[in-house]
């Protein structure tokens, strides 16, 4: 899994039940705003996220409706596994570097 995906996943797992829109999540994850959507679409397609369009009056808000994303139960379980696996790999690499030196 790529680093941006892991960052987004970690941010989502910090508050698994919370709904967030794309820009909000990008800022929480420390990603460049605008780069988060390929990640969200991939996660949603994999069943890790569900999304819904907010119900607001666009004229009153002065902006288009936002789409909010939330982790599914499967997303929480699989996401935690993926983050743990990535941490383990990083630990292994760090250990091997240590031994090499």
């Amino acid at each position: 899994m790529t680093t941006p995906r892991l960052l987004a996943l970690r941010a989502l797992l910090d508050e698994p039940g919370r709904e967030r829109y794309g820009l909000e999540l990008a800022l929480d994850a420390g990603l460049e705003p605008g780069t988060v959507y390929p990640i969200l679409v991939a996660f949603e397609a994999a069943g890790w996220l569900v999304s819904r369009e907010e119900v607001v009056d666009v004229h009153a808000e002065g902006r288009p409706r936002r789409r909010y994303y939330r982790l599914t139960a499967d997303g929480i379980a699989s996401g935690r596994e993926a983050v743990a696996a990535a941490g383990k790999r990083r630990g292994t690499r760090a250990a091997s570097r240590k031994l090499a030196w």
Partner: protein
Amino acid sequence: MVTGPGRAALAVLAALLPAGFRQRQRAEWAADLADLAAHGTVTRWRYLLAVAWTLPALRAAARATTAAGGPSLFTPRGFRAVLGRPGDRGIVVLAVLVSMLAGLYGAAHATRLGWEFIRPLPTAQQSAELRQVMFPGVPVGTEPTEDSNGFPALGHAVAEGADISGLVPGVRDRLVAAGWRIRENPAAGKYVTETLEFEDDLYAVRDGLLLYYDGETWFTVERAAPYWMGWVASAGALLGALLGWLMTGWAGRRAAAGSVAAQLAGAFAWPTVVVVLALLYGPFLLFFDSGLTYAEEVWSHLLHIATGVANWVGVVAATALAIVAVLGRSPTSQPVEP
């Protein structure tokens, strides 16, 4: 709300997404831009740049949602995977070499195309004026000739028997007075073994024309590359490099590693790119001492590539791609998800 150029940029970006996904994503981008309005124009354009940068990934993710079997979040990524060989570093090297070669050909053919639009040779009137500048009062004949790249040029020769000994020392000054810029010849003043004479020729440039005077009774006028030729060649190089990369990626994805198609195509591609790259890029690294500037030597080299025998490389590339097209898609081929 998003207005003006930002709105147009969003429309263009959204148009590149799959139809069923377009409206949804456009609304999300527009909402983000509305949020970022308070942060200024630079922030909003930075956002759009980031969106454009990740658009291929978003497009692939949106398309994968409808693909059979659904997407995989653990698909190998990076150059090697995109080129169809997740475990092979060689494919990246090959793609880079092919891109360099294709970029060079792109630059060469763009230069050749651009040459069709550069300033024409002097008219008869302009040529007559130039003859008077060079050798006032002396009959000088004009005849069509070719420059070193095979393009039409104008040759001028002093009539046989005419005495120009008193005019030769003033050629340089008269050219300068007529608006020509004398370009110092690095070879000037050198003793030339072949002719047992000192080199005292000169080059002069004006309005996209290059004048060469041999120091005696002959001078030529050729067309020179204008300032925009660099942009044309650069655009051609980028386009060629992109095509080279895409072609290598297509071949890598289509022909499975170790398949007959991959081995045959590789047998054509590897020696060609290595040898031809060395042959074609080599001259750019050499020091030229011909009196032409380095830029002029580059244009000349590019024009020779575009018109010369090196075009057989295209035949080799077409053969390698044809092998992949015909023999690819073996049963063991695995399409790589983007």
